[in-house]
């Protein structure tokens, strides 16, 4: 991919970095609040997998949740802002191919996800001692999760005409998927029915696989998780690429 792609990626990274207080510091703070409240309330009562303290269990979930939500927020909010203000034309007029367009937005989402996730991780170092059983799994799920949500964010950002529509997408799809994925609990503690439901949630596999990288154990095999997540990422990517190629909404 050429200079056009690299420039768009750079611009998308610079865009969130310039308002880092809002795009990085704020979500890190949010994750910290979750950590303080939930660990305070539940630490004494909950042990997961028998030997792991609840706070240690919670931290990877929070990191991953931050990666996912921020990856989604980055591509979706960039697109909707550009559409609403009209400055989307600056990226529509140049000779960028739709593949370059896609790759730049998704990678910038991964970048934002990793920066925020990394921020949460750094701050939580003060609170817990984490193990890193399989660093490659950690990295693989973080990156793949960022890609998946970055692509989904593109679909949402292209589809939505107004900020409220995007907010609805976020509140009614992204939030339930992340909160019902086992960020705050192991799904083994759920009734059987809800365990079954969780297995239809791709975010569950992301959280579980990510956690596997830390503790060396999870609710399902990380390979299964990788397969599911890769499939979902591929699906969202194909949809986004198709939409971009057809010019849906962006090139009326």
């Amino acid at each position: 991919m050429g200079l056009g792609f690299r420039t768009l990626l750079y611009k998308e990274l610079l865009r969130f970095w310039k308002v880092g207080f809002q795009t990085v510091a704020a979500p890190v703070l949010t994750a910290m609040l979750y950590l303080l409240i939930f660990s305070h309330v539940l630490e004494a009562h909950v042990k997961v997998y028998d030997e792991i303290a609840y706070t240690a269990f919670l931290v990877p979930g929070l990191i991953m949740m931050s990666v996912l939500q921020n990856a989604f927020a980055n591509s979706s909010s960039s697109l909707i802002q550009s559409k609403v203000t009209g400055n989307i034309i600056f990226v529509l007029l140049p000779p960028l191919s739709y593949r370059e367009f896609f790759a730049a937005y998704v990678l910038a989402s991964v970048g934002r996800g990793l920066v925020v996730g990394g921020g949460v991780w750094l701050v939580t170092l003060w609170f817990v001692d984490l193990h890193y059983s399989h660093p490659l799994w950690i990295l693989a799920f973080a990156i793949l999760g960022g890609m998946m949500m970055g692509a989904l964010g593109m679909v949402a950002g292209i589809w939505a005409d107004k900020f409220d529509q995007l907010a609805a997408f976020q509140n009614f799809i992204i939030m339930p998927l992340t909160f019902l994925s086992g960020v705050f609990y192991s799904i083994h503690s759920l009734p059987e029915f809800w365990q079954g439901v969780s297995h239809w949630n791709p975010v569950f596999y992301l959280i579980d696989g990510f956690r596997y990288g830390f503790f060396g154990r999870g609710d399902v095999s990380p390979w299964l998780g990788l397969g599911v997540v890769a499939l979902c990422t591929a699906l969202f990517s194909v949809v986004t690429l198709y939409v971009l190629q057809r010019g849906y909404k962006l090139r009326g």
Partner: protein
Amino acid sequence: MAAAIHINQLCKTYGKLQALRSVDLDIQQGEFFGLLGPNGAGKTTLISTLAGLTRADSGSASILGFDVQRDYREARRQLGVVPQELVFDPFFTVRELLRIQSGYFGIRRNDDWIDEVLANLDLTDKADTNMRKLSGGMKRRVLVAQALVHRPPVIVLDEPTAGVDVELRQTLWRFVRDLNQQGHTVVLTTHYLEEAENLCGRIAMLKQGRIVALDTTSNLLSQFSRQTLKLRLRDGAQLPPALAARGQMTPSGAFSIALNDLDEVESVLHVLHEAGARVEDMELAKPDLEEVFVSVMHEAG
């Protein structure tokens, strides 16, 4: 030599509204071309189709021989568009924006040209100012600069002077004229018909998605608009009967007489002299584009 812009039977509808009805148009390289028409005529839609911002329902368009759909990357490299809407990216300074825009076109280290464009648009001292701190006129200049970062051979300006002060207009036209003289093709839409008359070699007039007039500016002027003789007679005298049918009285009590050619001035004066009417004041009004525009739009129904 490929046409700078070639448009073939282009149609576009928005719901029930036909924004473009089979538009055919060729603009040659090096032209300074005017695209005129009332609001809603379809000028912006036509430009958006050329730029790939809108997809036509049928028909085709190409820039310097590159189809805007099939060879979109090459076509877009040839084209610089100054959009009608005053849009801007609030995250960046002027220079950052222009560097980024250069990068999108695959151009690195473009600062020499960026500086030249900034200087020509009187923007040099705003180079490091954030976009959101600029006035409307300044933002408009940046839009022009953004359209030019890749030195496009074909430049399209969609109402670049709407709501813009005189100074910017003059700066802008000087620069665009220079670019045209260096060989760039320029297409312009404007509501200031005087501007179009002074700048454009050829003009197309659009109404309800159709081209209703297309000719050189001088042909349009001579074809549609006759010269008029405006005169005022001493003591409030009326026109003599021989002229009464041709003359129209203006509200101020003067008369205007349409002439088919300038030689008629003599015969009109002769008739007045014979009738004993004495001319107090007289003026020859040249045809202007506004009259042409009004009569074309009227005739096109």
